[in-house]
């Protein structure tokens, strides 16, 4: 049984192959390959517009957070006292799926073409379950290509025997929205 959280480990096939996937409580170590696959799966489901399946990747107490910026270099830090671009609890994430599946989300209908890329996936050296990654999201609408990008932190837990996302924090480096809209990353 290998604990992978003792240092930052690049996700990679041969490392993943070495590892068993032990049952563990919240915050225990996880397999880097499995963590990366979960992130890729999330991107795939969002690109495909499979919102209910996307939501199912999240734990029952999950949160989803995109902070705003206080100034050039400092994201807002406390979602209870400062403004975020979005801070969703699990039930508000459900709202998002209701909106997107309603066919009345006019900004996203009739056309929302997106490509989400996830890379540089690393397990945190100190905190078990914390996964760092970089993301790029290409959004194409109204003949305009917009490229959003930034960092991401997922905290992964095991729930009902499955690896789930307990929280997701998205740092958005280019908060200029030419068409006034960005789908969730």
């Amino acid at each position, binding site marked *: 049984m290998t604990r992978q959280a003792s240092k930052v480990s690049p996700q990679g096939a041969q490392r993943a192959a070495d590892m068993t996937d032990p049952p563990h409580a919240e915050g225990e170590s996880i397999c880097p390959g499995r963590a990366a696959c979960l992130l890729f799966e999330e991107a795939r489901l969002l690109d495909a517009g499979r919102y209910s399946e996307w939501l199912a990747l999240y734990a029952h107490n999950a949160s989803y957070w995109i902070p705003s910026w206080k100034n050039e270099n400092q994201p807002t830090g406390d979602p209870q*006292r400062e*403004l*975020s671009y979005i801070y969703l609890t699990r039930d*508000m994430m459900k709202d998002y799926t209701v909106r997107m599946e309603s066919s*009345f989300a006019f900004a996203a209908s009739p056309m929302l073409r997106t490509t989400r890329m996830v890379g540089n996936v690393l397990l945190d050296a100190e905190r078990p379950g914390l996964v760092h990654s970089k993301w790029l999201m290409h959004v194409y609408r109204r003949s305009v290509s917009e490229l959003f990008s930034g960092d991401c932190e997922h905290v992964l837990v095991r729930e009902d025997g499955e690896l789930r996302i307990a929280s997701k924090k998205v740092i958005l480096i280019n908060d200029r929205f*030419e*068409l*006034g809209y960005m789908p969730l990353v």
Partner: protein
Amino acid sequence: MTRAEDLRDAAGEVEFVHEDLKAGTFRVHSGVYVENHVFDAEMEAFFRRGWVYLAHESQLPEPNDYLTCRLARQPILLSRGEDGEVRGFLNRCRHRGALVCRNESGNAKSFTCFYHSWSYRNTGELTGVTGPEGFPPNFDLSGLGLAPLPRLESYRGFLFGSLSADGPPLKEHLGNAAAYLDLILDKSDEPLRVVPGVSTYEFKGNWKLQAENSLDYYHLPFVHRSFMEVRRARGEEVKRGNLRNLANDYGVDLGNGHGTVITLDEGGEPNQHLFLFPNLVLLEEPAPQIRVIDPLAVDQTKVRGYFYMHGEADNSMKLRHYERFYGPTGFGTPDDMEVFHSCMDGYSIDSVPWNDLSRGLHREVTEAPLAWMPPFVSAGNITDDNFMRGFYRKWRLALSSDVRRPEPTA
């Protein structure tokens, strides 16, 4: 440009705002959203000569705090001196014109231009020129302090600026709207403050689309249907999910381009969307927002949204409501943006150029429908176009000498 549908006044010039009370019509020509010379005239008349909202004093609370912003696309520096007074400057080094302050905000007693290191006190005086011996002995540095913003005034913490030294004082510009702003500010004994963070977005459309839409309740059940579906799915009562239930809410023309819409909550407490001409909207519902409209070009607009609160109370639920609706990641605003883009597409059809703003023209009242209402010009149902008609009457009056020309003059 001439078109078959153009209406002309006695002098043969194109009319952009056409009112025909006998026919029950009030129409606006869509040239106002797409023609460059109209935009240039608006920038001159409203954004250079008039009062424009810049920032709230709580965004620079301490001595030596500063922030930078734009007025008519020009970089402006607002700085609070040691004496507590907020001053406005044109953010341009008097030497070669670089920005004297390149940061969004911070705290500084002085500003040093990074080009040749000329430095200025935060009250504007030029305090140092590098290599002073290189300038002629009779070269006068004393007149080269930061150029002050010609006018800067605060109304209860809301800072307005003007690039023109002349014109009516702020209080006169605000007119009836000041008392409606008071209604919002007087709801709490605690002073209003803006919390850290901004939700900013742009759209490829004319700034007036955002101004009109901010006080438009007619579109609410339709454009924001997905938001209503979300609330219904949650089991919430969606009172304003159809037009029938908006019968006891009001839209108000406050004159001088200002306006408000008033909804009453279960306890009869009024909540407003208050528009202060030309670029500020204060929204109380569905969450508190200070919305600032920055026109960038005839077909490009930037909007900045801020969350405001009174005192230090727990506002986390209101923050969630703000984020859930407003801004580029919310469940409401992106659909408004889609409307603006769609309208701009439609305006390229110039054979049917007229927009209709006649809704409620027959039921405008001048007597207050709510006893406590401060003075106003006309009121109607919240889904009526009272505010927009007031906006375009002011617009027509202010631009009458500027926008009837087919070509702008230099």
